[in-house]
Each structure stands twice: as C-alpha cells, then as structure tokens.
C-alpha cells in the first residue's frame, strides 16, 4: 500500500490547509518581455487546482515555471521563489538543478506526445531515469501506472507495440501514465483535453479526479465547465497577474473581483 494514498484517506478532510507548492512573488521574463507579474499563490496538496484566464494571460508560462521548462531555451529569467513541501526545496533557488526539479513534477502536454518507443518503454522512461533497472520492479510499476491512468485493459496485450498506434485519447492517457509512474509530487496539465473528442475528454476528467487521491494536480484549461467539474480550487489570471484565487465553488458563484465576474459570465476572453 502506498503510504501517501493511505495518509490521504486518513487526513482527507484536513488536506485543504496543507500547502504543497508555495509560489511567492513569481515574475517571469521571455528575454525582456515580462509575462508573469509577481504572482503569489499556495497550491493545496492532494487537490485539483485549475488555472483559467483569457488566451495569452500567462497560464502556460506559469505552469512551465514550476518544472523549470523555460530553462530549455536561452534568455528566459525567473524572479521570486517557489517552495515545494514536504522538504521545502526552492525550485528557483540558486544552484537548483532543473533536472532535479523535473523529476519531482510530472507534466502532461496539450497534444499527446508519446515517445517513438513501445507503450511499455514510454511508461518505464521516467522510472529508468530514477534509477530503477530491475525488470520485475519495472513491470510492476508500469502496470500500476497504466492502471491508474485507466488504460491498462486496453493495452495490456500489446505493451511492446509502438505507442504511435494508439488513438489520440489513449495516447494522452499513456502520457498521463508516463507522468505519474514515478510518483511525482505534483502533476501539471496544460489543456490536456483540447485535442481530444468529448468521450476521451470525459475519461481524462474522471482520471484527474481519481488522481488527486494520490497527487496534487495543477491544470490549465480554457473550458470553464471543465474547471467547474474537476477542480477544487481555481485561479483566474489576467495579463500576467493573478486576479483571484479561491475555492472553485466560491469563484464561480460569487467572485470577488469584477474582472473575474466578467470573464466567467463570458463578457470577454
């Protein structure tokens, strides 16, 4: 039994108070172009937090700060701090290696991006990176991840076939399996269903709700209904600033800022 899921069952109700990721005064620059302006928010552990806002407001940028993806390209700059519990590591801290950060954060992209490898090898990729080499351990963890991603039954008979032969929705679930296989602290989703049909979308939504038993989820979505369906907390961003952050229920029914209200009632964006 996984100790984390055990603890979540025990402490389920109290989780709201415990913070998983604390973002403080985070600013981000593409070269000289500032895209995030001093964003601060506490992302609660074992909950689904949705990021909404009009196109170009910086949702993707914020998400990609958390696993330091911006370090892949030259000229990008962060300011502020992002601490991750339980050890309080500052992922933007001096000398912090982005590779180490990325091993603790899973990421699922807008378009499914399975590697040109077998289904099995796709899921085993992160495990191997974390030093797991024994076939038995790998088998066990690959199966576990595929089950959690609700795709095991569809692929168990063809684990060693190329992942490209799967449908789009299956590929995306495979990518989720790949992201959760290593037991990351947080999984980041960037519009994971925008390239999928409604049935595949609802499968993924169920999956995300299921996932929060075990991991903290941060999801960018353009679909307000989706945010309402699956998230516990919602953050509304506008022009690189965090305008409002609160429980999904409250933010959708009784927003405290006029911009939020305009946005969720469809007056702009």
């Amino acid at each position, binding site marked *: 039994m996984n100790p984390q899921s055990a603890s979540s069952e025990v402490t389920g109700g109290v989780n709201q108070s415990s913070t998983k990721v604390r973002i403080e005064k985070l600013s981000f620059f593409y070269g000289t172009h500032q895209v995030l302006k001093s964003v601060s928010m506490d992302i609660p552990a074992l909950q689904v937090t949705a990021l909404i806002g009009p196109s170009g407001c910086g949702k993707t940028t914020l998400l990609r700060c958390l*696993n330091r*993806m911006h370090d*892949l390209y*030259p000229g990008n700059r962060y300011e502020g701090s992002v601490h991750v519990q339980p050890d309080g590591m500052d992922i933007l801290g001096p000398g912090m290696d982005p*590779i*180490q950060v*990325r*091993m603790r*954060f*899973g*990421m699922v*992209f807008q*378009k499914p*991006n*399975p*590697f*040109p*490898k077998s289904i099995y090898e796709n899921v085993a*990729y*992160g495990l191997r*990176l*974390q030093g797991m080499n024994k076939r038995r351990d790998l088998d066990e963890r690959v199966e576990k991840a595929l089950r959690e991603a609700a795709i095991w039954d569809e692929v168990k008979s063809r684990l060693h076939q190329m992942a490209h032969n799967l449908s789009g929705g299956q590929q995306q679930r495979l*990518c989720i399996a*790949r*992201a959760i296989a*290593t037991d990351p602290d947080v999984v980041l989703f960037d519009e994971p269903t925008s390239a999928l049909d409604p049935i595949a979308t609802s499968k993924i939504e169920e999956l995300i709700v299921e996932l929060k038993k075990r991991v903290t989820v941060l999801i960018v979505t353009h679909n307000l209904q989706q945010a309402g369906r699956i998230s516990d907390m919602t953050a509304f961003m506008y022009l690189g600033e965090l305008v409002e952050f609160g429980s999904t229920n409250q933010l959708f029914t009784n927003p405290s800022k006029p911009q939020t209200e305009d946005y969720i009632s469809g007056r702009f964006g």
Partner: protein
Amino acid sequence: MSTTRPFSRRLNHAVEGLMVWVLRFGGWASVLVSLGIVVTLVTESWPFFAQVPFHRLISDTMWTPLFADPQYGMSALLAGTLVTTGVALLVAIPLGTVLAIYLSEFAPASLREVVKPMLELLSAVPTVVYGYFALLTLTPLLQKIYPDLPQFSMLSAGLIMGIMIVPYVTSLGEDSMRSVPMLLREGAFALGDGKLGVALRVVFPGAFSGLAAAYVLAISRAVGETMIVAIAAGLQPRMTINPLESAATVTAFIVQVSLGDLPHGSIGYQSIFAAGAVLFLMTLGFNLAGHVLRRRFHRAS
C-alpha cells in the same frame, strides 16, 4: 482577356502544347540516362560473363583477367572494396552521427549556422585532392606510427574516404534529427532527462529512418568512390582483408585498366564493364534502400 483575341489564344494553345512535350522530354532524359547505364553495362559485359564460367568468379582467388593465364576471382576485388568501405564507415558513421547530434541538440544556433556551410565545403572538395591528401600526407604520417605500412594502403585511403563522407552523414542526419518535433523532446525533458539522454533515447529513435537512410547512402558512396582508392589504396587486386596492405577495389580496377590502351571488345574492355555491372548492382541496392527509408521518414514526420 485572351478570349477576345482568338489568334493569340490559338497561339497560346500551340505554345502550351509544344512546351508540354519539350518539358516531358526533359523528364525522360533522366530515364534515358539510367537506361543508357543499364543497357551499356549489360551489353558490354555480356561477352565477359558468357565466356567466364560462373563458378570461377567465386572459386578463383585472384583477379587477373588480362593475364595470359587469367584468373577470375571477383572476391579479390570485392575484398578491397569491402575493406576500404569498412574503414571509411568506421570513421564516417560514428563521427558523422556525433556531429549530427552535437549540431542538432547541443550547438548554439550561431555556431550551427557557421559549421553547416563549412561542412558543405568539405564535401565539395574534389576527390582527387582527397586522394593526394591520403597518399602524400596521411600515409607518411601513419608510417611514422607504423613503419611497415606500405606506400599504398587501404587504411589510409579508407580513413580519408571516411572524412569525405562525414559531412554527408552529418547533414542528412542533422536534418532528420531537427525535424523531430520539439514537443517530443519536452516530454522527455519534463521527466528529468538530460540533453544527451533526450538525444539518444527520444530524438535518435524518432529520426531513425532518416539516420538509417544517411548510413545506407554513405555505404553506397564509399563503395562507389574511385579516385581516393585508385590513388592511395593501390591498383593491384589482392585477396586480403588486412587494411594495412594495399589492394585494388572494384573501382580502382576500372581506373587501372582504363589508363592503359583499351581496344573496343578486348577482354580488358569487357572486364571493366563486368566490374561496373557488379558495382552498379551493389550501389543500386543501397540507393533504393536509402530512398525508401528517407521517404518513410518524411511521411512519418
């Protein structure tokens, strides 16, 4: 506009019809060239293959078709081609691949912009100059390390041939690696892999058919390369797989015979077409395989 002027319209029509034929004829030219090569090789080598018993091509151990007591061991020629090609590939494939990975995944764009045209220049050097380099620069250098190395050696020719092929492998390989979508790389980086890991585990398999095409075409080039081996590997056919010795390749044999007096229809004349036919079949196989792989790559990406 032209509908109001029937004459010019008819003229246009005639020009159009004429040009279609002119252009179509141009398109045929390439087919005619291929046909010319195949037909010439077949008809001119026919007498040779007709008069030499097939088993002697295989069982003889020497290739001396021009001697009074001729020997027809094709394998003596193929050995030379095999060894020089092998040495060349041992240089070109690893070096070409490492450079491709470096340029596509590691080097800053500014460096890549400088290096790629320079590599292009390297592949534009006439092969006779490479031959000069192999014989008069590399061989003396190698002789300092290994004094028994003869003046003509397959090692020296093969090494230089490898250098000649590197830009080819690199540029084809780099192109195919760069066309692997960034999204795939990001997926692997997001799991915490390093650059080299992403290059080897994700980009390499993603670009595999493109890289395989580069390798196969490199083999074809090495097999068909002529001047470097004719100058630096020696012109005597010899049954050996030791790269430290000298031996003629299929191509060097053709050069050696062509340098002498070559009456039409003589056995020497027929023998170079026989060697050419064998060479054609070998390279045809590699070229077609390379073409198929490249096409598959373009369709996949």
